[in-house]
């Protein structure tokens, strides 16, 4: 991990309220799927804290990394109006990545189901890409409330992708879990990876448990330091009052480790 000032190379809206930001990756360490970075947005004291975003793609040939973010509050609002060429202050890559957490056994399995929802889409696009490059044929399932929120422009045609919308305005009508349940073809020898709203993660975990699949999740939590020093971003793990730091011990965890509430 390093702190560096980079330049925005591109910033595009990819769905309603969602943006993709590309920037120069100026350090040697190659970021992996599941890892994130933090950005200091603006130079006012409000917003104050650096904002965490997962890496959504990395192109080694051009040293370009990207994130996909949703406009939510004042930090992401400011970020959304930045321009190519503007400086951004990056700290990363942070966190553990899927590759560091997924067991060798799971890695070698045939079926990899990558489930994304909302602001969890970025890291899962990258994970699907990583799996493909490792010779797998991942199934990417993206859940959105409605069609306008589907980031079509950043989807990779070569990856088997299913869109699920709550209102049926695009793809499968229902949640990602509904989709998985209605496709009994997914054999138990699959690995499910998920990132998105907590109910979605819980749903994936439950489904994996019920059907004997492995499950990995990437979590989100309010963060201050992002490097494991402040104990601010913990999640509860199995065992009596045990906490893990999402920023350092995670954000990727074996789903079974987490105490779901």
């Amino acid at each position, binding site marked *: 991990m390093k702190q560096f000032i980079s330049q925005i190379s591109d910033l595009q809206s990819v769905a309603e309220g969602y943006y993709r930001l590309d920037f120069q990756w100026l350090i040697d360490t190659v970021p992996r799927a599941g890892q994130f970075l933090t950005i200091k947005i603006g130079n006012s004291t409000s917003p104050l804290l650096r904002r965490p975003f997962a890496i959504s793609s990395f192109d080694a040939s051009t040293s370009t990394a990207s994130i996909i973010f949703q406009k939510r509050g004042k930090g992401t609002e400011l970020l959304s109006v930045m321009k190519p060429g503007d400086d951004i202050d990056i700290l990363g890559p942070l966190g553990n990545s899927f590759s560091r957490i997924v067991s060798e056994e799971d890695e070698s399995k045939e079926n990899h189901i990558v489930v994304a929802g909302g602001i969890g889409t970025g890291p899962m696009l990258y994970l699907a890409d990583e799996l493909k490059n490792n010779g797998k044929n991942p199934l990417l399932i993206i859940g959105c409330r409605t069609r306008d929120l589907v980031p079509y422009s950043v989807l990779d045609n070569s990856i088997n992708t299913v869109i699920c919308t709550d209102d049926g305005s695009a793809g499968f009508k229902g949640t990602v879990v509904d989709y998985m349940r209605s496709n009994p073809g997914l054999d138990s020898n699959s690995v499910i990876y998920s990132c998105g709203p907590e109910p979605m993660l819980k749903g994936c975990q439950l489904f994996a448990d019920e059907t004997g699949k492995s499950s990995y999740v990437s979590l989100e*939590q309010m963060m*201050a330091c*992002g490097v494991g*020093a402040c104990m601010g*971003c913990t999640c509860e793990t199995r065992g009596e009052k045990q906490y893990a730091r999402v920023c350092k011990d995670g954000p990727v965890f074996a789903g079974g480790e987490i105490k779901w509430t």
Partner: protein
Amino acid sequence: MDLTVKIGSLTMSNPVGTASGTFGFGEEYGELIDLSQLGAIYTKALTPEPRPGNAVPRLVETPSGILNSIGLANPGVDRFMSEKVPFLETLKTSVILNVSGSTEDDYRKVLEKTDSLSCIDGYEINISCPNVKHGGLAFGTDPRQVETLTASLRKMTDKPLILKLTPNVTDISVIAKAAEAGGADAVSCINTVRGMVIDTRKRKSVIPAGIAGLSGPAVRPVGVAATYTVSRAVSIPVIGLGGIMCADDAIQYLLAGASAVQVGTGLFVDPQLPLKVSGGISAYMNENGFEKIIDFHGFL
């Protein structure tokens, strides 16, 4: 030009340290900042027993500040010895152990087990913790408790003893004097300010514990005022902190009467900040013909 600062028997290489709870036990930030250039590392609070910390979320951003309720999450003194000390032993930087507890005995236990460690250069006693034997009011709000606690710890160690004051009191100078009377080598101020943020959608406190601690630039004027007040009340050194985001902020503290400063929340925004601050302090000394840190004092 001499940037060193003396706290009791300890000489720190420069006045800028990292505030307790924001820098862990030094390891995590090691990749991002040259630890050997820090004036001191003030560790995360240590208690005799391991503490898991509070329910999440533990943090929320406020205008120009953050509110936290970490709940003194720490590995406890035994795991500290096995997991943290080996790393601390590799450092040349001054390491000040921040000590917390729910009873006087808790503080004593930590000192007992750690006083012989050569990697610990001093103690910072966090008296913002509720004293379970005194109805849960923080140690640091009652001058008698502060004096008794300080005197009791003073007998146990020759290492510098720094009492860390809470701003949540009617008259901070009374508490500072009590620490001095008890034998403290220095006081540091401020710890976080009592605050609360409510989620109006969920209609409950964002932080489950309720009232929590405010830090960051929002409270800088509070810290500078406290430092000014305290440094006029006692003759031991004062370490100033609260909302330092640049060298100029630190210089405010030094002019207010501090002999050293700590950077806390500012680290979250810029991990390099402590080094920028000490660089900026040297530059200011150069421009103003200051030779020593003491030259900052006496203008106000």
